[in-house]
């Protein structure tokens, strides 16, 4: 998808955020799989890494990834609807704002789980 919208419009920001969130998630994937793959060596190997992830900085990064994951989902659904279904009017911008809100809510759910 390319964007013809003027820069800094909500539509353009949605386009850029969708791409950047996807890029961050794509770069994270190999590390995520490598960590889970430690379970092949047994519980202890995976646990050693999980102890490291209790570091607040790592938890903060995980929170960021959860928010980006939710954001990428909502902005991706927006692309699918825009391309495959007639969609006009203010709801298009509303979807972007709702996407940001839902992603933040997901991040809050993650934090509540970590702290709770």
């Amino acid at each position: 998808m390319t964007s013809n919208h003027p820069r800094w419009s909500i539509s353009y920001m949605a386009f850029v955020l969708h791409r950047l969130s996807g890029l961050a998630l794509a770069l994270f994937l190999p590390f995520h799989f490598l960590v889970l793959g430690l379970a092949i060596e047994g519980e202890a190997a995976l646990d050693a890494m999980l102890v490291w992830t209790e570091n607040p900085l790592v938890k903060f990064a995980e929170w960021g990834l959860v928010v980006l994951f939710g954001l990428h989902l909502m902005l991706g659904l927006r692309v699918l609807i825009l391309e495959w279904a007639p969609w006009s009017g203010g709801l298009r911008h509303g979807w972007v704002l709702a996407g940001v809100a839902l992603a933040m809510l997901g991040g809050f759910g993650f934090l509540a789980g970590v702290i709770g």
Partner: protein
Amino acid sequence: MTESRLYALQRLSAVLMAPMVITHLITIMIAVRGGLTAEEILARTQGFSLWAVFYTFFVIAVAIHAPLGLRKILIEWMKASTRIANGIALILSLGVLALGLRAVIAVTGGGV
């Protein structure tokens, strides 16, 4: 593969993954409660289970989806040639597929 087929693959993988992403996000929020331990993770995923099937399809879909997205960024933003972008996307796809399936086997005990 033509651009239109790559586009279709990207969108098809997105449609398949949307419900998987929602499921995964909910699972994350439940899993982090009380801290993550290998015992807890493996107790949920080990053995023959729907989790093994679910995450196998999730890995295959993301191994298609993510490299195609990266390919677009490389071509449109980084001005990479199609050949270079295709090469990088293919390497990422194979890497994600291999590491992802290994991770699924690791946490499910190969119970697919």
